[in-house]
């Protein structure tokens, strides 16, 4: 085996071992790497009451209520479980019912969080305004687009 291929082999071997070690670290610290829990993941996690956490899910239809100026309550769910959210502040542009959202705040009860910050989550679908109108007109508008 020539010297250059020994060097090449050495590089690839070290790259493989490095990658393996990094990925072992990453997947064993998965809990700390995820940006938010879904409501179902929250139930299975070891989160305590009064912990500051982030929860992500879909804003339930007709659940958003504006109690007073800039004070909102709403429910986020993931089809199986749900969490009630109360929030004081300005909601982002993309915040809508039946849309993805991530809230950050203190867990008051196991299904109740007092949010300090609300992030709207955008999905990977991009569509012109005109097509949405057309789809709605033709009753082809599928909720899963949102």
């Amino acid at each position, binding site marked *: 085996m020539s010297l250059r291929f020994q060097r090449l082999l050495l*590089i690839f071997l070290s790259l493989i071992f490095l990658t393996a070690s990094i990925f072992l670290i990453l997947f064993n610290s998965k809990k700390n790497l995820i*940006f938010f829990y879904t409501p179902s993941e929250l139930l299975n996690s070891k989160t305590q009451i009064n912990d500051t956490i982030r929860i992500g899910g879909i804003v339930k239809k007709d659940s958003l209520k504006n109690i007073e100026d800039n004070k909102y309550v709403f429910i986020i769910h993931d089809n199986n479980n749900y969490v009630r959210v109360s929030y004081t502040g300005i909601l982002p542009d*993309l915040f809508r019912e039946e849309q993805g959202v991530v809230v950050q705040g203190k867990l008051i009860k196991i299904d109740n969080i007092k949010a300090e910050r609300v992030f709207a989550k955008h999905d*990977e679908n991009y569509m012109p305004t005109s097509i949405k109108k057309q789809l709605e007109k033709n009753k082809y508008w599928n909720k899963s687009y949102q």
Partner: protein
Amino acid sequence: MKFLINPNRFIKFSDLVFKPLICLSAIFLLIGIVFAFFLSPNDYQQGATVRIMYIHVPAAWIAVLTFLIMTLYSIIGLAFKINFSFIINSAIAPIGAIFTLICIVTGSLWGKPMWGTWWVWDARLTSVAILFLLYLIIIFLKNSITNINVSEKITAVLIIVGSINLPIIKFSVDWWNTLHQPASISKLSSPSIDPSMLRPLVIMTIALMLLAIVIGIIRIKAEILKRKLR
């Protein structure tokens, strides 16, 4: 393909393609800007803010691709002792750094109105921030060691080690819950992006890639000449 590993052949080849490349990139950039600003529709949710995507996504792709090219050149440079690959590495690292910066800045300009925040530490954003730091370290490491033979090799090793970050960037949105949306185009099912929006995105990607290649050729040629003078 000898021009990819031989400096003299590279200069010959690049002289041949340089002017056509400049013309092409100018044409594509012009068409791309017209499409991005005037001939593409507003998004059904984001409105006109969607147009930031036409610069953000190509910049991100170029940032990652540049690092991938540097990785390949580092491997063959170290294994086969091809000095030209170190020339390329030091020439194109700043290009990758600038495109990463463009990607981060446009991303946070989009994030403020859409997500409601400039920056969050989710897996995608953090891994891209690490990519930017890696680029900076590569640029400064090369200049901080006076013995050029040593500094080139150390830089190449750092590039190979840093390349582990690339798959993490790509798949971070699939492996972990992130605020950043998952990929629209490179997913297995059909792209979830309307053709009228895909068109400006593709044209802008070609335009910016051509632009990056043009800048790359200039920088690589300057680096070759600089080393010949030494």
